[in-house]
């Protein structure tokens, strides 16, 4: 699209004409709005700006991150959303947990009907459903790998019919996988060396130089 063209879009019922080749957040500014909610890093990694919209002619709505979604002629923005799901409070256990521990925090996870709605809406292209399935079988390493790119926008939780919070299951699983990983040998050695004052002489030399 050539620089300088304009497109007609609709935001929450209001028609506006905005420059082409800009993002939905930039469209809000072009339309004279100054949002404070639903705006964050502007770089696609903080999850502040999930949005649902319909493109002209499409029957089903699409989802995305407003700062990463370009405006298109005939686009109707349905709603700027935010993650209102609750987080379970927990401490990382001393024993290596299994899925029963997960269910203490997120019991509804067991109700997954494998409908795939969560995977369909994820702006990070995560196969959310397969992550939930892996959690159900206690394979937290696999869940962790699946949810690496999760920006915690909460779209998956918003569309789940049985109120699963996949993004929170993903984060819980990642923290468990991390907390129970093996100690890296070099790091362990380095901590011992620092404790023993191994670098004393090197420090004296380094700090005495002008």
């Amino acid at each position, binding site marked *: 699209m050539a620089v300088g063209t304009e497109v007609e879009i609709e935001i929450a019922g209001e028609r506006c004409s905005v420059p082409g080749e800009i993002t939905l957040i*930039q469209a809000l500014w072009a339309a004279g709005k100054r949002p404070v909610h639903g705006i964050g890093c502007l*770089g696609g*990694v*903080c999850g502040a700006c999930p949005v649902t919209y319909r493109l002209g002619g499409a029957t089903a709505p699409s989802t995305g991150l407003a700062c990463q979604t*370009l405006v298109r002629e005939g686009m109707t923005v349905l709603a700027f959303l935010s993650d209102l799901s609750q987080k379970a409070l927990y401490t990382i256990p001393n024993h290596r947990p299994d899925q029963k521990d997960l269910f203490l925090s997120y019991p509804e996870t067991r109700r997954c009907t494998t409908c795939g709605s969560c995977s369909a809406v994820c702006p990070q292209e995560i196969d959310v459903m397969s992550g939930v399935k892996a959690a159900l079988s206690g394979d937290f390493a696999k869940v962790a790998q699946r949810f690496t*790119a999760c920006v915690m926008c909460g779209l998956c939780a918003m569309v789940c019919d049985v109120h699963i919070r996949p993004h929170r299951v993903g984060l819980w699983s*990642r923290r468990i996988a991390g907390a129970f990983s093996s100690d890296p040998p070099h*790091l362990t050695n380095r*901590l011992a060396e620092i404790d023993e004052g191994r670098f004393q002489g090197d420090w004296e030399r380094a700090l005495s130089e002008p």
Partner: protein
Amino acid sequence: MNSMDESRKRVATSRDARQQEKIPLLAEADKEKLVRDCHPDYKAEAYRTLRLGPNQGERTVHELADLLEGESLVLKERMDLKADHSVDLLIIGGGGAGAAAALTARSSGAKILLATKLRFGDSNTVMAEGGMQVAVNPDDSPVQHFLDTFRGGHMKNDKILLKTLVEEGPAAAKWLMDLGVLFDREEDGNLSVRSGGGSSRPRLLRCKDYTGLELMRVLKDEVLNEEVEILEFSPAVELLSDRSGTCTGAVLKNLDTGRHIVVCAKTVLLATGGIGRLHIQGFPTSNHFGATADGLPMAYRLGARLTLQDTFQYHPTGAIFPEPMAGILVTEGIRSVGGQLVNALGSRFINELETRDAVAAAVIRECHEGRGVITASGRVGVWLDMPMVDRINGLGTLEKRFPNMIRQFSRYQIDIRNEAVLVYPTLHYQNGGIWIDVNGESQVKNLFVAGEASGGIHGRNRLMGNSLLDIIVYGRRSGRAAAERAKSVPAGDLTLEHVDHFEEQRKSRGIVSKRISPMLFPDYVRTEEK
């Protein structure tokens, strides 16, 4: 005229030859000259002398000087200074440093209130991609880490602050891992490390190119688990003091109701982050929406001295095309694994692993001397040859190590596995900031600072990976120190006398207000730019 398509072809045809090409690092004197001639820090017209305050007589850029010499928000909106909250520690700012401080302060038993301008976790931290420097390898040491950083900082780093930073790196990594942070590993179980610009050894710990997101996700989760009281959408608009210049709390403003919230706090920690949305010298920025240097003018009015406030980091590779991506960071990690900078003619012009100030200056020189590529929107830049990464390291390297970047560009139909991208320096980091001691305390009693808002650790140029280390080490240290201090000091009187005093000085020196500070948010409504 170097059209984009023609230039792109030259990048492709020169790839074979460039793959073998070795460019030596510049001699110290040549590097200094390049930076002095071309780096924005040395553009005299961009600077002015501060007319009042703790750094009176010293220079900084107009955009920051306007805020430091600006008018306090509270002058127009008088309020009853009766405390709505009384706490041991008020943390202002909800990024990595604020979160780390909340956790150590909590362990010390402090009653905490954490106030954020946007949501908790909205920050520059979450956007960091390159990694966190920690000297873990056997052939590396904290002393070597110190020496690299000191040289990179033009030898202006505070030595004690820096020694503390690097020595506590391994403990910071262990602490994060115990909290569940997943750093990339080698097959033998050791932490995977990569090289960064200016570092003599590879020591960047990473989680793919999501390192900041990974840290922020885990820290935020743990702070919430600890049930720390959090007020979102409640930025601080002014600090409070007693009549002897000690910090005694702050005034927050609820952005939804407009109401002021008065917080009586025995200690205050400023973790307000960066300055990118000031668009210094008109540069685009890599920073998040709220990066408007809020902590600086408030601390300045209360008498906190700044240090190295005249130097800013322009990350050499910010995207400039397509237009909606302008300013977005293209991580130095790409250059760490062989990505090459190429001018419009298809030639390299600098060793890609020089420190950021040198690389940025080199890119600016190429564009200034007509060897840049001009986009349809009128921006100029050079190429960053991404496909070279897979060529050098094997097919699939980009996909495995930079999934975030692949996704970001794919949204604009650019496949970085097959195409070079256009870049130009982007305003990225404030090298200096509010002066702190090794416990994170400023010159103002009971006012602590951690993270990007503080100055002295990084000297005049921060190395890649030292900012994530800074927020963890000094976030933890200042949280602990502030909590300890709170045990031995009483709650103070709440006044805005320092603001009245500062305003009197402004008037008596004839300083006409250009700005109300803190700025809180940039305004893009008129310009329609990012």
